[in-house]
């Protein structure tokens, strides 16, 4: 059991894609012979099948120096019946005559089928001297349709008698109609032998009646009927919907088809005998009557059929400014398409917007059935009870030959006060569609949004461009300075030397602030301490080395000029003397010592202080 199911699924998986493929457009190129004589012709046939077959057209004509085009493209249409399904194919044929002997290629042809372009491959044909056509044969005649239905057995071509076995009929459900009343029309083939295909030979039709061809593809419409005691299979070849537009008597001219049939040959193996026959349909007489004048209402607009008219409202209690949807539905059988506009009677206090039209219409035997709905958006603009009057339409019913007035019911709408203004519906108050009524450019910039200036782009401004190297330079400087500081800090001696002047100046400022008008011990002590610290940091002179001789030697070694050394020694001597004899500095003011110290520091720092 499982095995069978698995096989079944497998078959579905295989067959389904194949069937889908079958629904696509295909183009097949064939020639009637691969070997011809220099005096023969060869027919290249392009068979287009698929849903867009009838739209196929040649986009690039075949050209070749080896072949002369005798005729083409000769276009024909084929209808085929396979298991009761009708399919259509289009055949384009070219007849060529070779210009020289040898192994030649028939040129490719480009076809536009639907949205795609197909190009056939060149076909190799051997051309020999003389002629290879069979005597009396017509396979390579210039008529591309001659072998349209040739099935290739070809051993016995004597025609069989199929006079009563195949015939055509034009049939319509109704032959007496009113103007505006539609009906179906079918061209049917009745047959008792195997039919392999049909080809249109002559179109029928008539002036004054509109024809709309219906699609037959994909519908199984084969049935059996008894005619004169014989059972025939009946298959529609074409179907139309007729739209009479004026009264009168009309004869729909017959259609002529060439039909490929296959009759029994009586052989033991049962091979069929193919042949092509021609059949002409009957002429169909139609009587089209005008609508009766008696009792015709003035507002009759040509609605013909059996209908009913209904109206509904999605709500009957609303606030002013709130949108409400009213649906008016015409349902039944008849010419819906002739009624495109439906207007609501004007109602005071109600704004009515252009309706949307929704159709649910199908064709059944050529007659439209279903419904057409108009959806109106109504917006009440003042409070109170509003009565929506009945909508009316006049329809002529061909069944009873009478005019009927169709009416909807009246609907009351209770409108409560709303905050919305009278003029327009607003978003969120109901299904009020926005409607764009026109397009234009936007207004000039004239108010606060107006921005004027030189318009010079930023990247062309010098200051902006300068920012790029500036960022890099600043970053580089920061890195250099930082590196220098890092290195200095890593060497305590160097650090102290670099900071000596700074520290001395700071101490000097402090002394200057705390000094009074006269020289004090604290001031002198502070000054001496300043110098001892400075000399230690700047020149690595320890405190015990601060004697006149040693200090002079150190400073001379440090390339300090003699005058500066002398002045420094003098200052230090005076301070030292103050410890033992305060009168030494009695006449001296602190500012004078500060100035001297600042000057000496500047000299020792090389002018940096």
């Amino acid at each position: 059991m499982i095995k069978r199911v698995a096989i079944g699924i497998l078959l579905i998986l295989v067959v389904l894609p194949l069937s889908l493929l079958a629904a696509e457009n295909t183009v097949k190129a064939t020639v009637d012979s691969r070997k011809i004589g220099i005096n023969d012709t060869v027919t290249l046939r392009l068979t287009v099948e698929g849903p867009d077959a009838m739209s196929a057209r040649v986009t690039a004509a075949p050209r070749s120096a080896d072949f002369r085009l005798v005729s083409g493209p000769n276009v024909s249409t084929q209808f085929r019946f396979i298991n009761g399904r009708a399919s259509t194919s289009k055949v384009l044929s070219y007849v060529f005559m070779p210009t020289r002997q040898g192994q030649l290629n028939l040129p490719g042809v480009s076809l536009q089928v639907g949205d795609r372009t197909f190009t056939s491959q060149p076909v190799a044909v051997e051309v020999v001297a003389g002629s290879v056509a069979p005597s009396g044969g017509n396979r390579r005649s210039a008529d591309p349709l001659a072998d349209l239905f040739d099935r290739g057995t070809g051993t016995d071509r004597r025609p069989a008698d199929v006079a009563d076995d195949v015939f055509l009929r034009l049939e319509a459900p109704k032959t007496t109609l009113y103007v505006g009343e539609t009906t179906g029309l079918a061209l049917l083939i009745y047959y008792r032998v195997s039919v392999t295909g049909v080809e249109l030979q002559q179109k029928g039709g008539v002036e004054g009646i509109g024809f709309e061809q219906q699609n037959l593809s994909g519908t199984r419409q084969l049935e059996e009927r008894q005619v004169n005691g014989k059972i025939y299979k009946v298959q529609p070849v074409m179907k139309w919907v007729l739209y009479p537009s004026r009264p009168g008597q009309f004869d729909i001219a017959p259609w002529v088809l060439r039909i490929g049939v296959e009759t029994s040959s009586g052989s033991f193996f049962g091979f069929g005998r193919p042949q092509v026959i021609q059949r002409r349909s009957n002429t169909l007489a139609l009587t089209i009557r005008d609508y009766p004048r008696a009792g015709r209402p003035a507002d009759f607009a040509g609605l013909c059929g059996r209908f009913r008219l209904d109206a509904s409202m999605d709500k009957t209690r609303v606030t002013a400014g709130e949108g409400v949807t009213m649906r008016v539905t015409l349902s039944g059988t008849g010419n819906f398409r002739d009624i495109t506009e439906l207007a609501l009677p004007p109602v005071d206090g109600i704004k009515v917007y252009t309706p949307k039209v929704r159709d649910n219409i199908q064709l059944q035997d050529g007659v439209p059935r279903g419904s057409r709905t108009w959806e109106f958006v109504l917006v009440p603009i003042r409070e109170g009870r509003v009565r929506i009057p009945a909508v009316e339409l006049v329809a002529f019913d061909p069944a009873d030959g009478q005019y009927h007035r169709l009416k909807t019911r009246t609907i009351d709408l209770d409108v409560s006060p709303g905050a919305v203004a009278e003029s327009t519906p607003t978003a969120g108050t109901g299904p009020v569609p926005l409607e764009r009524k026109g397009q234009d450019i936007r207004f000039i910039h004239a108010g606060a949004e107006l921005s004027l200036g030189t318009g010079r782009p930023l990247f062309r401004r010098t200051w902006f461009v300068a920012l790029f190297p500036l960022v890099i330079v600043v970053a580089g400087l920061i890195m250099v300075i930082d590196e220098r500081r890092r290195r200095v800090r890593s060497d305590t001696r160097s650090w102290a030397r670099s900071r000596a002047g700074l520290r001395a100046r700071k101490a000097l400022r402090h002394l200057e602030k705390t000094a009074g008008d006269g020289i004090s011990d604290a001031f002198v002590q502070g000054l001496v301490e300043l110098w001892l610290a400075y000399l230690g940091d700047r020149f690595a002179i320890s405190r015990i080395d601060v004697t006149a001789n040693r200090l002079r030697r150190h400073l001379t070694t440090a390339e300090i000029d003699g005058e500066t050394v002398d002045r420094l020694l003098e200052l230090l001597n005076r301070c030292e003397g103050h410890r033992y004899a305060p009168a030494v500095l009695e006449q001296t003011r602190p500012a004078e010592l500060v100035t001297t110290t600042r000057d000496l520091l500047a000299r020792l720092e090389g002018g940096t202080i």
Partner: protein
Amino acid sequence: MNRPLTAIAILMLLAGLTLPVAGAVSGPAEAVRAGNRLYEHGRYREALDAYHQAEDQGERSADLFYNMGNAAYRLGHVGQAVLCYERALWLDPGHVDARFNLDFVQQQLVDKIPEPEDSAVGRFWNWLLARVGVDVVAVITLVFLTLSAMVGVIFLRRRHTAGRRVWGALAAVILAITLMSGGVFGAMVWRAETLRQGIVVVRELDVRSGPADDNPVLFSVHEGLKVEVNARVRGWVQVVLPNGWNGWVPGKSVTVVQDGL
């Protein structure tokens, strides 16, 4: 003097004061505002003159060209309108109203030339050019360059500490972004300095195979079409269409968007 005539004279004087003619204004900003007032009263020709006066006085803002485009469109000069909107967008690619009006006017052009399908990179590039602009990329590049410098300095200061890997990775990422942004910026600047886009400003224009009237006509284009302008020879310019077709047209029939900006 009778009173009605006096009243009319006063009204005309007031109208003249409120709607100054283009020649009476001074300064580009005042010329633009005068043009705006004229435009609002439907005097598009005079408004356009006022805008041109502002341009002659050195005004080069996107809004000026946007307003000029509107006035030109109202006068039926579709080519001039396209030119002005393109100039507005060249100065400010984010000018939404100029973009809208340009799209609107382009729908009315005679020539519809399908542009070749771009790759993802090409679409991104076009988006950068059309919607972002050189200035924005320049600012982004500068910001990332500054960030790179800052993070780079921090990384160097902390290269001997435990967090050096984090700072190193951050510096590498920001530096990569900076380099990419800088590359795009450089390419955009190069394009801005070299590209010459022209707008056809005559109703119909025959494009010839060479820079002279006796050369065969290759094809015809119409007002408002944007082309790329290549070479110039004896008053003729070589134009290239978006689909790659090229030929020669008189220089005065095509105005280059970037000229004077």
